[in-house]
């Protein structure tokens, strides 16, 4: 299936970052940890990652932290990219993607810096990439057995349901966890996301997912179990959450016509695709 590269609305600006210097022949994987004021939890998370997945490179993107997040990461011997001010998870992630592309990584994993995710599940995500997926989402909700001990509030789960429905209507696919921040990315998707990634709150999860679907990337879900946050507070409280969910909904719906156009183009350009 040809990826509609021409549909990328905003062409990537020529990157100022160093050109890829390929040093290794096998697939290099970068684990990206967007971190905002995570000095309490980060050290333990990095140690566990290094222990569980010793073959993976790690990058901490310090999203304008006011605490010692960057120092903690460097003390663990992990490279850090420091953003001059807070950009949100989307901006931090995109920074990670740009770093990955600039340094020739072939796949990347998005991983929470607050200890929510289990490093032992990273190989499962990478395995799905190897089976040909471009975007692998670690889903909290379709765990086969009672492995998923993750509870969300009633308001949040309701709002997530609405977004899930919107994604289902727009992508024609059913996802159980559209807002999971535990994901893995293939090389083509990395390049795509490095050039355009939604940067608003929730945009980094739901909209990014839809963007990948619409651009013709293969998206799969893999069941994972998640833990309770080790430290730090949830990124947003209820009131502004309502605003953010509404904004995301508007943004999703505004993409709808684009999708129809893309489909029509794809149909006319290379006949039967699916």
């Amino acid at each position: 299936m040809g990826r509609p590269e021409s549909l990328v609305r905003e062409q990537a600006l020529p990157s100022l970052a160093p050109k890829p210097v390929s040093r290794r022949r096998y697939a290099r994987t970068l684990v990206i940890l967007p971190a905002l004021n995570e000095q309490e939890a980060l050290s333990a998370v990095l140690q566990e990652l290094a222990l569980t997945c010793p073959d993976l490179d790690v990058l901490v993107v310090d999203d304008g932290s006011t605490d010692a997040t960057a120092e903690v990461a460097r003390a663990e011997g992990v490279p850090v990219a420091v953003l001059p001010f807070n950009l949100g998870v989307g901006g931090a992630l995109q920074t990670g993607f740009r770093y990955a592309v600039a340094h020739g990584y072939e796949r990347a994993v998005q991983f929470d810096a607050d200890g929510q995710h289990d490093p032992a599940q990273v190989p499962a995500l990478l395995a799905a990439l190897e089976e040909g997926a471009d975007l692998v989402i670690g889903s909290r909700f379709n765990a086969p057995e009672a492995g998923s001990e993750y509870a969300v509030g009633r308001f949040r789960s309701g709002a997530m349901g609405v977004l899930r429905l919107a994604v289902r209507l727009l992508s024609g696919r059913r996802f159980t966890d559209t807002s999971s921040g535990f994901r893995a990315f293939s090389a083509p998707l990395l390049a795509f996301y490095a050039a355009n990634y939604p940067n608003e709150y929730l945009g980094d999860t739901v909209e990014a997912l839809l963007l990948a679907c619409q651009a013709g990337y293969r998206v799969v879900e893999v069941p994972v179990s998640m833990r309770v946050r080790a430290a730090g507070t949830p990124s947003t409280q209820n009131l502004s959450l309502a605003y953010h969910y509404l904004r995301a909904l508007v943004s999703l719906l505004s993409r709808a016509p684009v999708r129809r156009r893309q489909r029509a183009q794809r149909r006319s350009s290379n006949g039967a695709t699916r």
Partner: protein
Amino acid sequence: MSTGGHVLILALTLFSLLFIIRMVRRNQLPSRYALLWLVIGAIIALLATFPGLLDRVSSWLGIAYAPGTFFLGAITLLFLIVIHFSWELARLDARTRLLAEEMAVLRADPPRDRPRTTAPEDQPVES
């Protein structure tokens, strides 16, 4: 409106026109915005100098209440300008974001070179 009122508006308009011109001369206002505000200022000055003008335009447009014409024009114009500023702001935000990200990548620590067990390492390209 009284003659005094017109004189006041005319004075205010001339004052803001001079202020805009001063800003342009000091390179504090891009000329495209200066042009916009100068045209708007000129129109207001014209209306203040010739009070009958607004009435004539109103009756020509079929608007009974003359100040309504003025407010209609003003609100429409301001609306368009605000929309334009929203667009410009979004563009600037995207560019700032991009610069911040690119700067973070450029300043970031390079990937660690660790001994690997899974595959032989290539020679480093740069010495």
